[in-house]
């Protein structure tokens, strides 16, 4: 009961943030430039009548404040308007197609970065090697300046072009009998008990998720290093050991304490991750909303751009909510 209320309160707190971002996006995309339709069509030589017709079709002829509320209301109902460029194409269905791909990539990337970060921390804490630690620290503080497309292309060069063991792009090869259910292919393959599809989907995921995962692993490495060592040499761990608790159990209990700052950080990490996803997807032709955004940017499809950016705002808000809740679940000291 308490938890539900906590979720509700936290949930309402993200609404103003999303509203501010929506307003910002609206101002930036609708008020700053000239006529968006002209920009989208890339020409000024268009009959007045036709321009008016298109504007009316897209709802752009109404006063701005009406557009502002109408768009928001429609958005919340799942109607994100029509594409300016590909006429008659609802943006919502485009995004519904692309979102699972982005979700799959980001989840796998977080996993990769957690494995790298927590694994390094664990290794250092266990070995107590100063050289390993110094290396890990330098690695952790410089890895985030790697330019994602550069790293991604370098990996493609080695593993796809020279070694030819991994695909260069896309999400899956055509595989017989594989029909996506959720759109998250690795999950779908598991649900359908289709090992070939799973391996294939995974082989497409390896390079993109390592690229993105590596770049965002830096903060995790630092956090894990600092915390695991602090926790493992804490009085609490001494006390556990003094009571004859098995070492495996001690480590498991200690690990929860390392997890708390990592969970908290994952919320902050998400904004880095989203930006990184756009670049990773573009580099690997990964058909997610990042690639979609870049596509639409190239065609100046304002309605689509606006929708994608709002989706990102929702994802960020939602993540911070999830992080808060997970944090409250792990740490009993948080009252809800």
């Amino acid at each position: 009961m308490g938890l539900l209320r906590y979720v509700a309160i936290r949930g309402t707190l993200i609404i103003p943030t999303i509203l501010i971002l929506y307003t910002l996006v609206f101002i930036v995309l609708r008020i700053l430039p000239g006529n968006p339709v002209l920009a989208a069509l890339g020409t000024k030589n268009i009959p007045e009548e036709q321009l008016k017709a298109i504007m009316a079709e897209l709802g752009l002829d109404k006063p701005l404040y009406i557009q502002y509320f109408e768009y928001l209301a429609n958005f919340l109902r799942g109607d994100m308007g029509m594409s300016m460029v590909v006429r008659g194409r609802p943006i919502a269905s485009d995004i519904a197609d692309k979102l699972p791909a982005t979700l799959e990539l980001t989840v796998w990337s977080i996993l990769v970065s957690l494995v790298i970060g927590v694994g390094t921390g664990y290794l250092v804490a266990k070995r107590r090697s100063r050289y390993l630690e110094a290396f890990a620290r330098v690695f952790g503080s410089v890895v985030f300046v790697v330019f994602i497309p550069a790293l991604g292309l370098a990996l493609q060069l080695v593993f796809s072009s020279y070694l030819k063991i991994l695909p260069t792009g896309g999400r899956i090869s055509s595989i017989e009998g594989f029909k996506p259910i959720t759109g998250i292919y690795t999950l779908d393959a598991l649900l359908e008990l289709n090992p070939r599809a799973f391996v294939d989907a995974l082989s497409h995921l390896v390079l993109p998720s390592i690229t993105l995962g590596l770049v965002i692993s830096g903060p995790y490495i630092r956090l894990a290093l600092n915390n695991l060592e602090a926790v493992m040499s804490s009085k609490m761990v001494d006390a556990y050991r003094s009571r004859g608790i098995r070492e495996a159990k001690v480590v498991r209990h200690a690990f929860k304490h390392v997890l708390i700052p990592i969970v908290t950080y994952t919320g902050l990490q998400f904004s880095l991750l989203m930006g990184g996803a756009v670049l990773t997807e573009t580099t690997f032709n990964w058909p997610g909303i990042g690639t979609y955004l870049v596509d639409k940017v190239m065609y100046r499809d304002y309605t689509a751009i606006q929708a994608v950016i709002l989706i990102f705002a929702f994802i960020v808000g939602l993540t911070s909510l999830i992080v808060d809740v997970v944090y409250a679940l792990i740490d009993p000291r948080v009252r809800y």
Partner: protein
Amino acid sequence: MPGHVLEVEDLWVKYYTLSGVVHAVSGVSFKLRRGEMLAVVGESGSGKSTLAYALMNMVPKPGKIVRGRVLLGGTDLLTLTPEELRRVRGSRISIVFQDPFTTLDPLRRVVDQFTEFLMEHGLDKAAALRVAREYTEAVGLPGRVLESYPHQLSGGQKQRVAIAMAISLNPEVVIADEPTTALDVIVQKQIMDLIDDVRRKYKSSFILITHDLALALERADTVMVMYGGYVMEYADKSELVRDMRHPYTRALFESLPKLGQRGLPSFLPGYPPDLRNPPSGCVFHPRCPLAREKCRAELPQLAEVSKGHYVACHYAGVVG
């Protein structure tokens, strides 16, 4: 049961740090009778806490026990396999740490930590729960404490929980490492009274590690004074009060505030020794008011000056 529950023979502990070897505990020996409370008294850096860890055979890295034996009922804890050691810890020898705020896991309920501990020593779930309830009550805590998370308890309550766990498997030896230092004055007395109670009730032997000579003289049967990793003086409490031999013990005693005394108590000038480069000869000589040439040159051995009264000082006979 004849003999002793715990015999420590010639124990040496060193820390191999990057800035040099720290000689933390040097040649400590003592015996503990059943039901006895031994107080180990010393300033910070005297090696008393390291001694406590060494008795559990859990000296943290880069520390190492380089020599000696810790015989608990005849078995040497320093030669056990990790698994054997694990079984001994908490069940035959247990420890209560200084700061109850940091020793309980804040993320888990008391009952989970308590029963996990008991089950790691072979009790089944139902028995563990029964024992946990019994001992929570025995240390004067209401039953709801078990269902609480540590942050919902006061410092005194947490320390009671720690004591309850430490005694619940009826170990032969309980080490209490500064058990009251982190607590309020009133709670300190309650906790020490509780320790006295359980000691009588369960006839367990206690080793009280403390910096407070007054507390030691008030509560313990025997007192061992440590300085710079060495034992300075070791005697029954009554014997010690009657006949303090070592200049360091006397200095500690002089520094206690006393009833009816005017002005401030005297205190010992100087600093504890740097155990990376311990002084030559007697470790105490740089601060000793009686130090002579021999003290700088030669390490005094712990010698029996009267029955059960040991002193490590070249001039122990002269003093007084």
